[in-house]
């Protein structure tokens, strides 16, 4: 039995090492597949979520500089005249994602993070270019990241595969209006088709590493 137990514990230690607990997303999103193998940045970025019901949510990823959160919400508060209290603004750090129009922001931030999860958020309006509120969020995030961190902000778009294209288009136009033209789409990895051009290129690169 001893070798058997040895192997079992070896497997156990492997899984303990390999497991990474990822923070729970505010909403469940099934991302589409792609052949891309690039690693997702997890810091110094903003994540724009698109749920399967075409609701847009906004969430800055700045674990190392929590000051970014304060700057964003302060900027939004003054520019949009929302009249948030300091306590509500401090709560923004703990908010998993904002998915309400500016009119509902005060109510959202007055709730505790647990209650926010239970709240059904209607999404940030993006479809109409005149009321595209995501433009403001991106603008604030851009200036906040530019002040506090040396590196540039990455933009992650995590969309549900079943969300409709116009919502994505609205997100992209909000980004474009802030002169942001490079994005990372969050996807689930997929195998590269063997007989495709990319498959051939990969194999050639592996066969002759000296060339590259």
């Amino acid at each position, binding site marked *: 039995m001893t070798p058997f137990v040895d192997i079992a514990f070896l*497997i156990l230690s492997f899984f303990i090492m390999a497991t990474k607990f990822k923070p729970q997303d505010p909403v469940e999103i099934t991302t589409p597949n*792609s052949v891309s*193998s690039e690693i997702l940045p997890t810091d110094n970025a903003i994540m724009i979520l698109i749920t399967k019901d075409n609701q847009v949510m906004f969430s800055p990823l700045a674990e190392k500089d929590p000051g970014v959160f304060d700057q964003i919400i302060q900027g939004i508060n003054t520019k949009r005249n929302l009249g948030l209290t300091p306590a509500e603004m401090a709560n923004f750090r703990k908010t998993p994602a904002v998915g309400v129009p500016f009119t509902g922001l005060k109510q959202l931030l007055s709730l505790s993070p647990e209650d926010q999860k239970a709240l059904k958020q209607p999404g940030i309006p993006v479809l109409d270019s005149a009321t595209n509120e995501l433009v403001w969020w991106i603008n604030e995030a851009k200036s906040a990241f530019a002040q506090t961190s040396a590196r540039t902000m990455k933009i992650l778009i995590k*969309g549900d595969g*079943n969300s*409709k294209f116009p919502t994505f288009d609205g997100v992209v136009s909000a980004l474009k209006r802030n002169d942001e033209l*490079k994005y990372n789409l969050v996807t689930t990895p997929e195998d590269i088709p063997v007989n495709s051009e990319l498959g051939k290129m990969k194999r050639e690169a592996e066969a002759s590493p000296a060339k590259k």
Partner: protein
Amino acid sequence: MASLDTGDSGGHKKGPGVKKAKKLSTRVDMTPMVDLGFLLITFFIFTATMNEPTAMDLNMPKDTDKEDEQTKTKQSGALTVMLGKDNKVFYYEGELTNENASQIFQQTTFKGIRDEIIKKKNAVIAAYRTDPACEEKARKEGKKVSDCKQQDFFVVIKPTEDATYKNAVDILDEMTINDVKRYALMKISPTELDLVKASGGTSK
């Protein structure tokens, strides 16, 4: 060591009446530990996320009205792909006019579009005549000279309002899979939308 038996002098000696110290077994019952081990294995197997999410790059062109900043493309090398509802894909090659619409406008699926892309790409490569300026530039920038062969190939992606985000990602992925260097996401024109509608590609 060689020694004489001197009776009870040593003390280690076991003799009659000296109790043999009971040798304790070093073996422990491992069953509970192994049980726990397997329990943990199952737990970690179930929670393990082997598929780490990946990032797919998307670069959009800047919206511009200035003529000289716009990307120029040859009509002969263009392939326009439109995405409709229920994963329907429509495509045409070259330029769409009122006369040729019925002939060149076609419908396919996400499986079929790959062959069309490859077919069009090969046609463009076959029609390629050596362009020294492009090859020189590629050599200078350390890019592949063979990419010049497909310099006229341009895929225009036009999703309708009924296309899903997955459709858009799939078609962008198709560009990576087939090594298409030049492609763009664009708004669909009214003429194209009418054709898609006529083929049952929209819900309206």
